[in-house]
């Protein structure tokens, strides 16, 4: 129940809108997610079966426990003891207060549970009065009290006797007895060591101080190293394959050897492929071996190899790992990644343009060639025609001479001779 007085101001979100006090056993509606004290909402539902906030239908079965965070928030609110008016100044978390009331609070009502003649006393009073009541009415505690007072007396007398301890107790003197320090000190073995302990203590404190300073320094250094490592990792991530530590550069030749042999094997297997296909085959196989090396490098062979015109897988692998200095030829690793990428992009664009213009030039050349050939063909044809005409003329002459000889020799009629001549002529012209 909301019977406690709360010490601190309460967040309005933690108050039940029915009792206007911080939630007690907070309960949430499963249908509309409103929170109330378990008791408040159950009583409200017994009156009207709807949510008090939005009036949607609600049954007790639609209630569920609230998020444990809310429960902890209200359970940890600080409350005053309910007997504050009577004089109890106890303040605690709300969840602890029931225990205080049950077991501790002197002002809480308790019942005397003493049995006398088989009957329970049962009279109720404040806890602080219970002992007096039991003593007075039931005759309890008297013996114990005597024992207690005896105990007190004994300890009192002991304390009086064992009053003195050695001033060197802090450095180990076990003496504790009736002697005054002035009487004890002359015989105390620690007295002679006093000087040593003083210097030793001074040294110790100096060392402790230095240790503190050093620890602080180490802490800061560790922090710096941590920061640097973080930054390094960030830089590595940003650089990606462009990052190359000195360790990796040193160990590259070994990797290069493996990659070279692999690339060589690929090259043997694919030796019947056109030369230009081979980088595409070998590229991924080398890239798989060393991630931190530029995977694009195989596509950009060293210039001297380009000049040689022979682009074999092994020479290509050499160009990847760059035996001398490990620099891939056309890529300048000295610039930033963005700059290089930009440069690469530009050169790709330039190459595309070049390829384009080469294509166009080829096309133009082809057209020119075709035209020239056509013209030549025409002139050849014209010459052919001239030749044919000449042959024709020669044939005509020959025909004419032949006809005249036959007419003279065989004495045939001019009509038949004419016909034969024509037939001959036809067969000759067909040449």
């Amino acid at each position: 129940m909301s019977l406690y007085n709360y010490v601190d101001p309460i967040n309005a979100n933690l108050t039940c809108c029915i009792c206007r006090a911080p939630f007690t056993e907070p309960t949430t509606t499963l249908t509309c997610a409103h929170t109330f004290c378990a008791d408040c909402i159950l009583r409200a539902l017994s009156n009207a079966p709807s949510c008090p906030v939005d009036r949607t239908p609600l049954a007790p079965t639609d209630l569920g426990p609230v998020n444990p965070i809310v429960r902890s928030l209200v359970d940890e609110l600080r409350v005053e003891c309910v007997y504050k008016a009577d004089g109890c100044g106890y303040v605690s978390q709300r969840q602890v207060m029931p225990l205080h009331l049950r077991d501790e609070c002197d002002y809480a009502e308790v019942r005397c549970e003493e049995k006398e003649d088989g009957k329970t006393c049962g009279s109720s009073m404040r806890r602080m009065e219970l002992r007096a009541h039991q003593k007075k009415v039931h005759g309890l505690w008297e013996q114990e009290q005597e024992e207690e007072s005896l105990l007190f007396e004994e300890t009192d007398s002991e304390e009086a006797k064992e009053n003195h301890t050695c001033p060197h107790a802090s450095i180990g003197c076990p003496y504790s007895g009736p002697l005054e320090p002035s009487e004890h000190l002359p015989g105390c073995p620690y007295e002679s060591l006093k000087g040593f302990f003083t210097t030793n203590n001074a040294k110790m404190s100096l060392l402790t101080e230095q240790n503190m300073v050093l620890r602080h320094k180490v802490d800061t250094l560790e922090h710096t190293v941590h920061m640097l490592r973080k930054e390094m990792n960030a830089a590595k991530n940003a650089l990606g394959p462009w990052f190359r530590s000195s360790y990796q550069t040193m160990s590259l030749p070994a990797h290069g050897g493996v990659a070279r042999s692999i690339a060589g094997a690929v090259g043997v297997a694919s030796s019947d492929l056109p030369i230009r296909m081979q980088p595409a085959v070998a590229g991924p196989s080398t890239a798989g071996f060393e991630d931190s090396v530029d995977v694009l490098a195989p596509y950009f062979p060293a210039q001297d190899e380009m000049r040689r015109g022979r682009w074999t897988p092994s020479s290509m692998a050499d160009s990847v790992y760059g035996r001398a200095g490990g620099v891939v030829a056309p890529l300048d690793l000295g610039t930033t990644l963005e700059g290089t990428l930009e440069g690469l992009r530009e050169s790709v664009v330039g190459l595309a343009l070049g390829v384009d213009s080469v294509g166009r030039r080829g096309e133009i050349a082809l057209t020119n060639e075709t035209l020239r050939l056509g013209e030549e063909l025409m002139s050849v044809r014209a010459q052919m025609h001239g030749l044919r005409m000449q042959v024709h003329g020669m044939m005509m002459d020959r025909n004419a001479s032949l006809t005249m000889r036959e007419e003279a020799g065989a004495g045939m009629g001019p009509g038949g001779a004419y016909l034969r001549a024509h037939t001959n002529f036809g067969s000759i012209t067909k040449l």
Partner: protein
Amino acid sequence: MASISSRRLAKELREIQSEGCPVGISLLEANDFAKWLFTIEVMGDSVYQGEVYTLQFRFDSHYPISSPAVQFVVTDGKEAPIHPHVYSNGHICASILGNEWSPVLSVIAVCVTLQSMLASCKKKERPTDNDRYVRNAPENPKKTLFHYDGEHYNFKSTYLQD
């Protein structure tokens, strides 16, 4: 249970005293957690301009689970406003005082609702069944079962048996 209603009312009273009432409403008397009196006045332009009414709240031990009994005071020369939802004996026919009461409502919320109910009235007239109702009305308006009808001013009221 009684302590819960009084604790809740004590909280409401503390809030009223620290933050004050809304404009047009003021606390007249709150000597215990059984009966409170408020004065209520409609601000601005309305048919009740310049008229001040007294509103009485009576709480039972189940407040705020059960609604307070709210009515206008009609004794000591005071009168109930002439309104189609207000009977001449001071009883008010408002749904939030009956079946639409919700424990999350408060005394101030009821006052504000009644104030706006008066402010929205265009014509001063009594409920149509005023005479019949007043003749037989129980002392406590909570014992009346009103049939709420916002559109027409034809209310039927039945009396609950104790």
